[in-house]
């Protein structure tokens, strides 16, 4: 059932993401930058919050008066900042929800990725606590509703001495000191949130914590436009002698509050169940994955390319443990390794041109060795009766994921070293090579698409040699829902190949294969 749900949500995301890809390009696609946008919005909230705090006056009477003062008399700067503060906070909830759903839909929360998912669960709580404590400070009618309902909800738990809700029994029961406590909470909780966000990204390398500048600028511009068009305003001063009803709720933060009014116990049960469910999801069921990467020390000189390319911080350079004359060797943290194979693709010893002895590389996946990649290239060349012959290096998570025809299927296209493309073309195993990875903005293994693009372009080591005819290489970055586009691009590529001079001879391949093995 979870798999079906995941598939359904993924299709929705795919349609939306590809539309945004077409509109703004993969680099500026907001759905591919949700984590980075979350951080960016956090900083907007933090900066606008500091600005507002300078103008804010704590106290039963002063809080509302000071907020009204700067929202009306100084609307052009402080009022805008207030709107920034509120709407960026709301957007954090939106971005967080989309980020969670997207990672779920793309099955990027199980296996070695459990850590990022699990540490994201308290982040949800802290985002809500940050937002809710902020609403109290304004001390308008919404603040009164939030304060009384929150305290009544907390009082349901048998952990507090005197009911906290008694602080809001009558106007005389509220003290200025209470606002000092709230200000402290509204600063402390976001600081803890920032700490939790830092933990959240610990198990990935090159985390995207800043969106591209153009996207950041457009986000700010959109926020400004909405802030001017619909400024965030107070809802009349709080009056504990009256029930604030009706009250305009912020449905992003307070959508469950009506349930708190009716059944606080049920709400706590719901929150507890949802938290436990979310926390347990990486193991419902556990991801069955290939065994992690293994280092073959005689073929590893500790160059560090695999460490540089690993998207999951699963590789480290450590002092040498054998007698070879190198200072360092690579160690695999098997808990972090997702078996993407990108390390194999980055290893200089991963070259299929070796003709002496068994084909062994410095770092490899035991369940999908580099030798088996080369073997597959040979097999495909042997059985192919098409002309021109295509070798598709396909990502299992992209449009080529279900292809078997002429396809070398890998957990990530970046598992294939550029030398494999060179090998297939120069040794006559294919007339053209298609690198069919995930959609550019949705690489399942985070950096695989980027690394492969840079390798082919000669911008990243290991480079695709300049002698390799680029016209015989096609890169297709397509999601699983874009199978038709992949087929179309393959057909067009075949037509182009057919027009090229000096086509490779299918008859040559087996002979060359024998020579190579």
């Amino acid at each position, binding site marked *: 059932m979870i798999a079906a749900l995941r598939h359904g949500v993924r299709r929705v995301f795919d349609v939306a993401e590809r539309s945004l890809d077409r509109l703004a390009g993969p680099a500026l696609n907001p759905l591919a930058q949700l984590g980075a946008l979350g951080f960016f919005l956090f900083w907007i909230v933090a900066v606008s919050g500091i600005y507002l705090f300078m103008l804010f006056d704590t106290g039963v009477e002063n809080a509302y008066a000071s907020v009204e003062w700067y929202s009306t008399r100084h609307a052009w700067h402080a009022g805008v900042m207030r709107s920034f503060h509120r709407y960026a906070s709301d957007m954090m909830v939106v971005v967080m929800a989309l980020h969670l759903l997207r990672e779920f839909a793309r099955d990027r929360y199980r296996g070695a990725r459990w850590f990022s998912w699990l540490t994201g669960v308290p982040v949800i709580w802290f985002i809500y606590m940050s937002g809710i404590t902020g609403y109290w400070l304004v001390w308008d009618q919404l603040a009164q509703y939030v304060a009384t309902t929150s305290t*009544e909800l907390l009082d349901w738990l048998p952990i507090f001495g005197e009911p906290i*809700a008694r602080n809001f029994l009558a106007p005389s*029961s509220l003290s200025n000191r209470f606002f000092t406590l709230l200000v402290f909470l509204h600063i402390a909780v976001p600081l803890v949130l920032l700490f939790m966000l830092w933990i959240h990204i610990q198990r990935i390398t090159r985390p995207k914590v800043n969106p591209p500048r153009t996207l950041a600028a457009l986000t700010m511009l959109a926020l400004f436009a909405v802030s001017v068009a*619909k400024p965030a305003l107070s809802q009349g001063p709080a009056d*504990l002698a009256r*029930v604030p009803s009706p009250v305009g709720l912020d449905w992003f933060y307070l959508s469950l509050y*009506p349930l708190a009014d009716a059944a606080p116990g049920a709400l706590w049960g719901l929150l507890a169940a949802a938290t436990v469910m979310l926390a347990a999801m990486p193991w419902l069921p556990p991801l069955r994955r290939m065994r992690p990467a293994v280092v073959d020390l005689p073929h590893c000189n500790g160059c560090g390319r695999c460490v540089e390319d690993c998207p999951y911080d699963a590789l480290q350079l450590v002092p040498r443990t054998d007698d070879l004359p190198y200072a360092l060797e690579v160690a695999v943290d098997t808990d972090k390794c997702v078996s993407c194979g990108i390390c194999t693709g980055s290893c200089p010893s991963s070259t299929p041109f070796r003709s002496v002895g068994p084909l062994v590389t410095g770092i490899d996946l035991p369940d999908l060795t580099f030798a088996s990649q080369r073997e597959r290239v040979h097999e495909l060349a042997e059985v192919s009766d098409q002309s021109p012959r295509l070798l598709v290096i396909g990502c299992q998570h992209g449009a080529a994921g279900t292809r078997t025809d002429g396809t070398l299927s890998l957990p990530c296209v970046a598992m294939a070293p550029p030398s494999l493309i060179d090998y297939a073309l120069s040794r006559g195993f294919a007339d053209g090579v298609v690198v069919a990875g995930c959609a550019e903005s949705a690489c399942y293994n985070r950096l695989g698409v980027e690394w492969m693009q840079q390798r082919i372009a000669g911008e990243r080591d290991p480079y695709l040699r300049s002698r390799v005819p680029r016209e015989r290489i096609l890169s297709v970055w397509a999601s699983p829902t874009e199978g038709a586009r992949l087929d179309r691009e393959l057909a067009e590529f075949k037509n182009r190949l057919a027009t090229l001079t000096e086509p490779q001879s299918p008859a040559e391949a087996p002979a060359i294969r024998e020579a190579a093995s």
Partner: protein
Amino acid sequence: MSAPVSMPRLAGLFVVLAAVMAFAAAFSDAPAYRQIPPDTGVIKFSFSHRADRSQECRRLTPEELAKLPPNMRRPVECPRGRRGIVAELTIDNKTVFSGEIPPSGFAKDGPSQIYRRFVVKAGSHTVTARLRDTPRTEGFDHERTEAVTVAPGQSLALDFRPEHGGFVWR
């Protein structure tokens, strides 16, 4: 690796972002939520009050005092524990709360505490609150009956303040 994005496409992306922001802004204070029906008010019944001790204080015998260290020889021993408070609230002769509220704290030596909220129709109501905080087993030590008028949306709080003579409206 991506090509520069043209201005019309950037404008399109801005429209998308602005639309999402507008969605956020729209639901940041609407639709309004009504906590109580329009023709009702709220009566809160809440107090934090310490009842009498669960057992009477007693004077120690000279033998018991002699067994204690010299600096701890207090002639009267008073157990920490408190009794629960029996309280009752009726609105228009209908009992909306009745029960014993236990003392708080692990040692059961804290005040008994209650916070209840009752939504009532706007208009006049006769409210009676009763409370027992002594060793007596029947009847009440404190009682207050009063006719109150609740305006629509009004919030009245009935507290117990022994220093002010018992139940007080706040």
